[in-house]
């Protein structure tokens, strides 16, 4: 593993920065940060490190929706240590963890995951767990949702909601029963809507490029029909729901209509679905293999419109490590997914802030996703607690190289591409890591 230069627990002096004051970035000659007390000066024995930010932005660290570091079942692919390293590199102080490799579907599994997480020396992050609502994801047996939500034996508490990864719902009756049972917990249900019969063996967006290349497509209606089924069931049972990685305007329209009718519905959009469209398929590069698929330019525009009008609550990362050998095959046989934690902020910041303003951009990447799962905010200038922040030079381009990624995987369509911004460093729980 390629670890970055990491200086454990330092007090920090940031000079010549533009600091996020909660509404905008304001120039500040000096920001002093205590490793343990944040903006409130304390007394400790730690060294003080001085950083000249040269006009870079100092903003709240990010909260990532869609983390899965594969451990323990696939620790040959990735580990918690790799994931935490990736989070620190990318300026993330916390995230919603949903384990596809090890579905958290009973109290023992939750306990084991909590124990494993807490035993990591590098764990200084605010990790929230999403529990499964079915045993093993995608089955028609209920997971132990009440005990999962309770989480009595952990300081972290229980799961913050329920989701079955990207597994399809086996049938509508089970969806009803899962929501009906899970409603007792008061938790939100998370769905990546995808009708399995309409998807079948599709691996790309069904559209102009799938036709041209003769590749099996996944139509938009695979998403919208599943989303509609979820919404109708949630309406019937009065259960709050969240749609993960929405890919098209039609689903956003369903969300808008549901909200107009008073339903508690939230949604996020994946970083890569905002950055890319299916013209990338022409490259026939498995790095662009995502599930749900990258859709057309028209869909991407619709997602941006949803960001601008407030329909989309958060930009998600869906950090998915894939072994090199699983990408060294043709597109259709490759394993879908991409790494994103290390590069999300420099990749999206400029366009996002240009489209919606800096305040909303910070909200979409940090405050809103944290609020969605009940996590604490990255920092509070007036509070006597740890400050988590990331320093971004918005105008310094950065070419993505393999060494940017933690662990021994580097699956990202942005590998080799130039990002418009670069991370100077991030300060998470008193630990500074340079970008």
């Amino acid at each position, binding site marked *: 593993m390629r670890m970055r230069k990491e200086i454990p627990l330092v007090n920090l002096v940031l000079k010549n920065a533009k600091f996020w004051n909660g509404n905008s970035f304001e120039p500040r000659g000096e920001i002093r940060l205590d490793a343990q007390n944040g903006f409130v000066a304390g007394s400790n024995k730690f060294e003080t490190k001085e950083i000249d930010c040269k006009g870079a932005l100092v903003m709240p660290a990010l909260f990532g929706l869609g983390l899965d570091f594969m451990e323990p079942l696939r620790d040959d692919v990735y580990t918690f240590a790799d994931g935490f390293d990736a989070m620190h590199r990318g300026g993330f102080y916390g995230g919603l963890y949903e384990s596809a490799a090890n579905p958290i579907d009973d109290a023992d599994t939750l306990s084991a995951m909590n124990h494993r997480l807490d035993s990591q020396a590098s764990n200084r992050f605010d990790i929230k767990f999403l529990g499964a609502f079915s045993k093993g994801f995608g089955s028609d047996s209920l997971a132990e949702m009440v005990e999962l939500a309770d989480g009595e034996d952990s300081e972290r508490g229980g799961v913050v909601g329920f989701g079955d990864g990207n597994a399809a719902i086996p049938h509508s009756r089970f969806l009803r029963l899962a929501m009906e049972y899970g409603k007792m917990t008061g938790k939100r249900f998370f769905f990546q809507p995808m009708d399995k019969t309409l998807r079948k063996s599709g691996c790309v967006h069904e559209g102009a490029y799938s*036709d*041209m*290349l003769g*590749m099996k497509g996944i139509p938009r209606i695979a998403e919208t029909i599943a989303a509609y089924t979820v919404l109708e069931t949630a309406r019937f049972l009065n259960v709050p729901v969240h749609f993960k990685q929405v890919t098209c305007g039609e689903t956003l329209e369903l969300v808008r209509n549901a909200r107009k009718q008073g339903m508690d519905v939230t949604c996020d959009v994946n970083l890569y679905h905002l950055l890319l469209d299916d013209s990338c398929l022409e490259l026939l590069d498995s790095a662009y293999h995502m599930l749900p698929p990258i859709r057309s330019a028209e869909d991407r525009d619709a997602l941006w419109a949803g960001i601008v009008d407030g329909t989309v609550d958060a930009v998600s990362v869906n950090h998915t490590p894939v072994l090199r050998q699983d990408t060294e095959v043709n597109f259709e046989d490759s394993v879908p997914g991409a790494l994103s934690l290390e590069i999300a902020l420099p990749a999206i910041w400029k366009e996002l802030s240009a489209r919606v303003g800096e305040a909303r951009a910070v909200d979409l990447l940090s405050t809103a996703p944290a609020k969605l799962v009940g996590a604490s905010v990255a920092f509070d200038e007036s509070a006597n607690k740890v400050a988590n922040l990331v320093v971004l030079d918005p105008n310094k381009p950065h070419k993505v190289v393999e060494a940017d990624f933690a662990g021994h995987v580097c699956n990202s369509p942005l590998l080799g591409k130039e990002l418009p911004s670069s991370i100077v460093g991030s300060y998470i729980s008193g630990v500074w890591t340079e970008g």
Partner: protein
Amino acid sequence: MSALEIKHLFGLQGVSKHDIRMILDNAKQFREILERPVKKVPSLRGMTIVNLFFENSTRTRTSFELAEKRLSADTVNFTSGNSSVKKGETLVDTLRNIESMKIDIVVVRHKGTGVPKFLADNSKAIIVNAGDGAHEHPTQALLDMLTIEEKLGTLEGKNVTIIGDIRHSRVARSNLWGMTTMGAHVTLCGPSTLVPRNTSLMDHVTWEPDVKKAVKDADAIIALRLQKERMDDALLPSMREYRNTFGITNELLEYAKDKVLIMHPGPINRGVELDSEIADGEHSVILDQVTNGVAVRMAVLFLLAGGRANENA
């Protein structure tokens, strides 16, 4: 005569008129050689070609193998059935192992779209696509074009109608790119569950759902093979209905030109996409396609290897 602009043959989308013209002209010369008592030329002597077939194939592999032998290349056949691919070896590892054996050209067929390009990105060998998924089958389209030129003199201004399972057909995709580049007008016709769902391909061709109208002005009709599994996948109700609606029959040909060419990439489902009396009848040029297949593949291999046919013929 200048060299080909392409370094590999992945497909015909984006291949220039210059390159297609060059391949067809060379193929015509090789076609003449194939009529001679001694059919072998020394053009690729000393070169080694591997036929890397991850999908079952008899016709295409045999045609390539024959073309390679006619050019005096050393050939090796590698099929997934007898390879370590079945033991979990990745595509890259397979290629690197083969490449270590100092292979010059790889002819590849695979179920996955883009495998030829993937191999080219990871290898120094010249790659020739012998069919990748439903994407492209460029040498089939080239032999179709050669056959039409041979019979009609030119492709420019000719009407070519392709009937059948367009959606899943690599032959149709290669043909529409190649033939439109060479000035032909392509019409596609087939059941609505077996044609492309989006309009991207339609920008280049005409879509005609009525088979009688589709054949009316055609100078050549290409019937595509109908896979029987389409019935299991609820894409079609029955072979019988398909034959009665889209099959090439004597009755349908009453709506076509008197001298229309009937073509098929083979193998034929007789009595489904093509009636036997049509397949064996006066309009059929199907066996000419097979012969031209060897000539076209000789031309492709020869030109990609950097030679000139007339120097060695």
